[in-house]
Structure formats: structure tokens, C-alpha cells
């Protein structure tokens, strides 16, 4: 019955010529122009280069003799002067200030996308470096390795295509200078961590301190977010004889570093000049296993109150004299980051208005004995008027870069990025210029005085420089050092190293998924030429 009905309807329509109106008809007329995907000639060059792009139908809207064009041409969102147009080509001049990126032509509000143009300068990806795709999770910290490469720690499981070979690197790995990942061997003998590692540093005997948010390392449980490992990344362990319920004793393996944070992860950990350990975080409790009162199935922990910071000996025992006493209440807010300076003092930054009961603007320095450094406190004055999220220190220069959600530091106006001297005074030689489209989420200072920034910004001084900058020490931007295209994400550290050919290079690690427009995750090595 229904099929009959349907047939009737159809027949009825056929007789009168189908649907009365084509729902897809009557649209706006296209302009009839096009930029072709083919690479321009040349496809890379420095500012001032004349470049020919392939196009279609532009002549209708051009008067090359008079230099008049009804369209505009852009590379990486920067306008490029049009020198000539034929019906199949478009010749443009690369502007003086520009970073690499895709091209497009704009006419009457419509955009015609074209190919990418690479702006040449002093910075480029080290394409011979073995890591091209990156790591599967963030890389938070690095430490130079005796093989010329680096230890890396973070929250990753796979590096490059290791997922295909089922090679797992649980938050810690060793890379060579050429960028190959050291596989499980005598030089890398670990199952890694359960959880993420934020920090890695070295003792004078070559052993390593790692910390983060971990409860297990190398299949050994009971880790209090911090551990000591050997140079091959395996956990330093000790065997303890414990009573079982049946009255017999049995041996259990523990981390030989017996100490840790009970109630929160550790943000940063440091090895002091005399091989003690300082850990910073939002913890309130230090813990240490009391094996004498434990059984095989139940470990008794002794808890000691600590606030934001704790110092331990190399075996994990807490230093009760460090940051101790009634006033040692720590931060009244959130600790975000910290560094250890050359005289075993720690500078702690975050989102707090007081530390150990003393009013301060989101930053404080503790002396080697854990007491608040009064001189530093006086030098920072009112400090930052908003949270400090990241602090990075250059020991050689004794200067630090702070990044956060502040607009003023001790009366010095700044949009979220500032250079501090080691004593807490502002280095006002550095001034961040006008930044738009987002904010800065990381800044560090290199030995040359240059500053590496990452962020969510689009433009610096009105020129599109998406997500990353290498600035001069006064905050100026040099075209040659800022040619890469879009960076997406956040850096956590920048290490000065050498490229695969032996030139000066930077290892960038963090939580990012693009560098120079290319998809690469969390680790990349870049050549930086002519660094004074």
C-alpha cells in the first residue's frame, strides 16, 4: 500500500518536471581566482627575496603597469608587496620582518590559500637529529649525560615510533647527541617510573635524584615521589628483612632513599653542594618508613610536618634543623616552581601572599639553612602582583626569568615576563615589547644573554611570531633568530648543546605539538647559528 502511495507521488512529480526548486542552486558567484599548491620559486629565502607564486585568473584584477592590484598577498599573516602579476604567476617581495608560514591571497574578504614559504635565518631544525616525531607525553626536565646526550624525564611512555616495537620508556629515557634513544642495555637498565617525573639532578658521585608524582620505580613500590637512581637509571635499592604473619622473616626490596612526600607530588628537587637533597612542592608531610615497626605486608611510616620545602640527607632522612620551628609555615597559597642558586639557597615562586608568615609578592628566597632571606625579601619589595607560574635560572649569569599572570613587579610594569637578578632586584634592561593574541607561558635566559620564550601569543611588536621567540637580552627581536613558523604549546626547559654536526644548538623540551609549523611533540633540537 505504502509503496503504491510513494509511486503515485513520484509519478505525479515526473509528469510535471521534478522538484520545483533545486535547494543547492542560486549561490554567490565565485571570483574565479586561485593560488596553486605548487611550491613557489624559490621556496625559501631571506627578507628581500623576490618570490614567484603560481596562480590563476589574477590578471582580471591586476594592473601591473600601474602597480595596482585589487587583492593583497600575505605570508604568515604578514603583508608582502606585490611586484608583478600575470595570469599564471604572482611575484612578491619578502618583507623585512617575517617568520616562516603559509601564504594566502585576500580579495573582497575571501581568502585563497597558497603554499608555505620558509624564511631563512640563523635558526632551523636539526634535521639529522634522530628524534623527528617526539615523545608521547610532556618532557619536563633534562640533564646532560656522559655520552654527550641527555637524560630526559617527564610524563611519556613512547619516543618516536617505539610504540610499534613495544619499547616503553616510563617517564625516563637516555638520548644520544645524535638523537637516538638508548634501548634497554647496560647503559639504560630500568623499567622506569609509575607516574610522571618533573625533575632530575646529579650527585657528586654520578648518581641521580629524580622526583615528581611517582609511587613506584623499577617495580619497587613505596616511593614517596622522590628517588635516587644510578647513572644507568636503575633504582638504588636495599633489601630489608621483615616479619611475615607466619612468624618467619622474608626479604623485601625498597628504594634505599628512605624519605619522601606523603600528601603531594614534588615539583622540584635539588642536590646541594654537599650532596643533600632539597625538595619543593605543596606537601605538608614528610614520610620515612620505620622498618623496625613494619611487617612484610604493612609498612609503618613516620610522618613529620613540613611546609612547602624539605631538606633530606642522601639516605632520605629529614634535616630537622632546616626550615624548622613555629614560623616555618611555608606558603599560604600554591607553590608553582623553584630553583637552587649557587649558594644553596632556594628561590620559591607561586601564587601566595605570605611565606613563613612574612608578606611577600609570590616569590621568596630561603637561605641554605631554610630561613627566609631578609635581604632578598627587601629587594623584591612588593614583588609580583599576580601568580608566578615558571621561574628559570641561569647560574653563569646569576639571573632568573619569571613568567606568570602579573602586570607589575615592585612597581616595575611588565606584562607577565620579567628578568630578576640573583639578589631579587629587577634587571630593567630587559623589557618585553608589545605582545598580542595571547600570553607568555615560559621564559629562560641563555648564557649569551638571549631569552627564549614560549606562549600562546600570535604577534610580537606587531609581527606574527606565533608561540615562540628568541629575544635579545633587552627584549628586542632580531629577525634572523625568529624565522621558524608556528610553535604550539609550552616549553619547560631549554638546554644549550651542540647540533649533530657540532654547531651550537638548543634542545627544547616541554609540552608542545608543533615547532616551525611541523608536527613534533615535546622534544626538538634546533641549530642556532652566530650566537655571540
Amino acid at each position, binding site marked *: 500500500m505504502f509503496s503504491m502511495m510513494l509511486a*503515485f507521488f513520484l509519478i505525479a512529480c515526473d509528469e510535471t518536471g521534478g522538484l520545483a526548486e533545486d*535547494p543547492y542552486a542560486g549561490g554567490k558567484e565565485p571570483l574565479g581566482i586561485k593560488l596553486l599548491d605548487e611550491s613557489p620559486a624559490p621556496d625559501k629565502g631571506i627578507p628581500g627575496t623576490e618570490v614567484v607564486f603560481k596562480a590563476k585568473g589574477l590578471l582580471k584584477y591586476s594592473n601591473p603597469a600601474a602597480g595596482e592590484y585589487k587583492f593583497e598577498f600575505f605570508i604568515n599573516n604578514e603583508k608582502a608587496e606585490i611586484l608583478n602579476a600575470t595570469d599564471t604567476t604572482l611575484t612578491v617581495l619578502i618583507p623585512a620582518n617575517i617568520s616562516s608560514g603559509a601564504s594566502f591571497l585576500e580579495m573582497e574578504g575571501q581568502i585563497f*590559500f597558497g603554499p608555505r614559504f620558509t624564511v631563512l635565518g640563523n635558526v632551523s631544525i636539526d634535521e639529522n637529529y634522530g628524534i623527528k616525531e617526539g615523545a608521547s607525553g610532556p618532557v619536563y626536565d633534562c640533564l646532560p649525560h656522559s655520552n654527550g646526550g641527555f637524560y630526559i624525564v617527564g610524563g611519556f611512555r613512547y619516543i618516536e615510533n617505539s610504540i610499534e616495537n613495544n619499547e616503553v620508556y616510563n617517564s625516563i629515557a637516555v638520548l644520544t647527541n645524535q638523537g637516538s634513544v638508548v634501548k634497554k642495555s647496560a647503559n639504560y637498565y630500568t623499567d622506569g617510573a609509575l607516574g610522571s617525573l618533573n625533575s632530575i639532578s646529579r650527585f657528586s658521585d654520578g648518581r641521580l635524584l629524580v622526583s615528581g608524582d611517582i609511587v613506584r620505580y623499577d617495580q619497587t613500590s613505596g616511593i614517596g615521589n622522590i628517588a635516587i637512581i644510578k647513572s644507568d637509571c636503575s633504582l638504588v635499592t636495599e633489601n630489608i628483612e621483615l616479619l611475615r604473619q607466619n612468624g618467619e622473616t622474608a626479604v623485601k626490596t625498597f628504594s634505599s632513599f628512605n624519605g619522601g612526600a606523603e600528601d603531594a607530588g614534588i615539583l622540584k628537587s635539588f642536590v646541594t653542594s654537599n650532596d643533600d637533597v632539597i625538595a619543593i612542592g605543596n606537601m605538608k608531610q614528610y614520610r620515612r618508613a620505620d622498618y623496625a615497626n613494619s611487617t612484610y605486608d604493612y609498612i609503618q611510616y613516620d610522618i613529620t610536618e613540613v611546609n612547602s620545602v624539605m631538606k633530606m640527607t642522601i639516605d632520605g632522612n629529614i634535616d630537622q634543623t632546616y626550615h624548622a620551628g613555629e614560623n616555618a609555615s611555608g606558603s599560604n597559597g600554591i607553590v608553582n616552581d623553584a630553583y637552587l642558586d649557587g649558594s644553596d639557597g632556594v628561590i620559591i615562586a607561586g601564587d601566595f601572599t605570605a611565606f613563613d608568615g612574612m608578606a611577600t609578592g609570590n616569590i621568596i628566597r630561603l637561605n641554605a639553612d631554610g630561613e627566609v632571606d631578609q635581604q632578598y625579601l627587601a629587594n623584591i619589595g612588593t614583588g609580583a602582583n599576580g*601568580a608566578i607560574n615558571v621561574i628559570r635560572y641561569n647560574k653563569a649569569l646569576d639571573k632568573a626569568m619569571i613568567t606568570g599572570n602579573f602586570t607589575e613587579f615592585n612597581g616595575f610594569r611588565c606584562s607577565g615576563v620579567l628578568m630578576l637578578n640573583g639578589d631579587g632586584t629587577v634587571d630593567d634592561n630587559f623589557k618585553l615589547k608589545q605582545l598580542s593574541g595571547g600570553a607568555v607561558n615560559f621564559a629562560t635566559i641563555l648564557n649569551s644573554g638571549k631569552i627564549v620564550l614560549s606562549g*600562546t601569543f600570535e604577534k610580537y611588536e606587531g609581527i606574527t611570531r606565533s608561540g615562540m621567540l628568541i629575544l635579545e637580552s633587552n627584549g628586542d627581536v632580531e629577525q634572523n633568530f625568529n624565522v621558524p613558523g608556528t610553535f604550539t604549546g609550552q616549553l619547560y626547559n631549554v638546554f644549550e648543546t651542540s647540533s649533530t654536526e657540532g654547531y651550537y644548538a638548543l634542545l627544547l623540551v616541554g609540552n608542545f605539538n608543533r615547532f616551525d609549523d611541523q608536527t613534533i611533540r615535546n622534544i626538538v633540537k634546533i641549530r642556532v647559528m652566530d650566537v655571540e
Partner: protein
Amino acid sequence: MELNKAKPKDMNKIKLLAIFSIGILILGSLASCTDDSYFNDGGTSSPFYEGSILEYLKSRPDYFNKLVNIVEYTGMEKTFEEDEITFFAPTDFSINRSIQLLNSQLYIQGKDTVKLIEQIDPQVWKDFLTLYIIEGKYLLKDIPQMDTTAMNVFSGQGYKSLNGRPMNMGVVYHDLEGVKYAGYRELFYSYIYDFAENDLINAHVATSDIQSFNGAVHVIRFRDHYFGFNPYNFPSRAISSGIKRVDEIVNKQN
């Protein structure tokens, strides 16, 4: 057959029904061709909304409650009420998905999570919301064909969004029973990294051509869309611009 099983008493009913059906058929076949104004007839399938885009969004709080709050928080009411625009509407599901990702990142950092849109800098909301707005009214039929497997031939068309960033609109002509491009058409709105390398993020439009007094609304499929296209753009921008505490907002409102 079922008819044979019917009792004699019911036969009359069946006859009646048959006559009635034929009547409807004749009426229907007449109507199906003579009535070419059904497109404007109103009813459930009307593409027209008697009001501004903002009023339309307000009429569907099941999809756009948060979106409307964001429009008001960023002070963009005029754009949505008066300016002639094409709006690719991200639903609350997309916005919530991005907020969840943001919150998971804040949680890892040990920071308070976001409960109110006001905790995020209005400029951040505005910069992302304006990515979804194109000046002028573009309906499906105004937008060129796009074929994601042959972008150099059918590329759709780029337009500058209100944000300033070039975006791409394109209509994908789906195939029908093996006949290329003869099937239904689907609108795509794309965030461009490198068009020539096909490096872009597509948002699928689920409902297109909702026409209000001041332009067109195309609603983006919420199943897989993140507010801000790249899932991480919004969370990292929100964090770097600073997250306000809930009590700061509440104190301000009091």
C-alpha cells in the same frame, strides 16, 4: 496473506480504508507538485527564525546555554543581534569538552579547576569565539565544493574570520550509490595550518542554513569538536592568561 485471514466484518472497514487512501493519494499527488512554496511554509522544517541570531541561540538552551553566557560575558551581543554574520555555532558540548581538558591540566598542576566561564579572561573567550564568525551571510548554496581527497581541485573557499585568522568553508558532496558527488552535501568549517599540505582541522556542520534576521547559523557537530578546533589551544591560552578563583568572581558579583 493477512487480508485473507481478516474476518468478513472487517472487510467493509478495509474497503473504506482503501477508498480513503486513494483519495489521499490523489490529493497528495496533486499537492506534491503544485505546492512549490513549502520551503517558506513554516512548520518544523522551516530554516527561518523570526529573530536575531542571539535570540535563536537563546531559544535552544539545551545546546547553547553556555554559549549565550559567553556571548554576554564578552560583550558581543551587538554582533549577534545586529551585524550580518555567518556563525558556525559550537554547542555547549564542545565548550564543555574543552573546559574538561583545561580542568584535567589544571588538576595535574594541583590548581583549582574552572567551574564558571567568568574564571577565564573574557579576551580568551572572545578570541576563540570570533574564529567561528564570518562577516556576511553565507548559506550552503553560496559555498564552493570541497573534496578532502582532492583539495587542489575542490578546495572550498577561505574567508577571514572576525578573529582575523583565515578560515575555510567548503561543502563536501557525498557520493550516492557509486555516483560521485550525487549524494547529500555536508558543510565543513576548517581551521587552517597549511592548506597546501592539507594540514587543517575540520569541523562538521550538523545543521546548516538556520536563517535569522541578521545572518546564518550553521551548528557544528558536537560529537568530536573542541572549542578552539585544536583541543589544546583553548586550555593553554586560558592557563597562560590566568585563571581567576571562584571566590573572586562571586565576591565581584555580590
